[in-house]
């Protein structure tokens, strides 16, 4: 028997929870519906395109093995979003600890150079430019911006997730938007210059 694709997330979730051991069809349909959003978020939360799919897979694996404990008090989307932001922020924190010995200025310059190279590859249209801009932003401003403007999380949730105060979250998001607009405009100017010159 196949999965009824007209079912909504909550019905699929119920089927996934009630499925026999090893039957992942309902869960796979949920993954199919949410994979693009989760992969995108993992890509920009971690700032590491090469790790994005692995991170997203780990998020779905955690969700699958947590299905039995999930009480359906929130939607699947909200639940997976929480798992994903926790997982990606832990990844970023661990990565930061591992690279603490590297001179921060050197690391920042290297990251920017890498992002700039990526930017030239990705700068094909506005949609891809968005991704390139995100990768060029500083981590401190990028993460709150993604959680708010890409993921739609509430300020309070972001504050909890990042372990910082509400006013700090608001400030970072405001500055993040400014930085995003600035880099976006710079890239536009670069592209215009390249087109004319």
């Amino acid at each position, binding site marked *: 028997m196949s999965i009824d694709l007209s079912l909504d997330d909550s019905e699929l979730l119920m089927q996934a929870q009630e499925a026999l051991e090893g039957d992942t069809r309902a869960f*796979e349909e949920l993954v199919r519906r949410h*994979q693009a959003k989760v*992969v*995108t978020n993992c890509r920009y939360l971690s700032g590491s395109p090469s790790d994005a799919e692995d991170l997203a897979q780990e998020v779905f*694996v955690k969700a699958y093995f947590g299905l039995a404990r999930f009480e359906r008090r929130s939607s699947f989307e909200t639940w997976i979003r929480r798992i994903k932001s926790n997982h990606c922020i832990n990844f970023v924190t661990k990565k930061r600890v591992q690279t603490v010995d590297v001179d921060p200025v050197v690391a920042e310059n290297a990251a920017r150079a890498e992002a700039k190279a990526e930017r030239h590859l990705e700068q094909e249209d506005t949609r891809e430019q968005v991704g390139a801009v995100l990768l060029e932003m500083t981590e401190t401003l990028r993460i709150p911006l*993604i959680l708010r403007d890409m993921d739609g999380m509430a300020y309070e949730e972001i504050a909890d997730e990042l372990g910082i105060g509400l006013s700090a979250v608001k400030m970072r998001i405001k500055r993040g938007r400014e930085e995003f607009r600035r880099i976006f405009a710079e890239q536009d100017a670069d592209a215009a210059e390249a087109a004319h010159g």
Partner: protein
Amino acid sequence: MADDHVDPPVEEVDDLGEPIEALRNYTVEPSSSFLVRLRNRLRRRDLSSQVATLSWTGLGTVVLEFFRMIFSIVDPDERGEGETD
């Protein structure tokens, strides 16, 4: 006159607009093998947890049988009813 004036809450209304708005619906499609790799990963994890459960059960049974054997040596009178030498 009563002071009816209430300070508006600190910026809760998001000042979006382009290009920030583009973030809302921005997605990157995963590779075509994403779901297959995930399925394999789930199967591997499932299998390893089954093996782990089986190993613990096996170990538990061996320990239990070991103690039963010890008790039957220490206290040979404790035998099932109807058991004779």
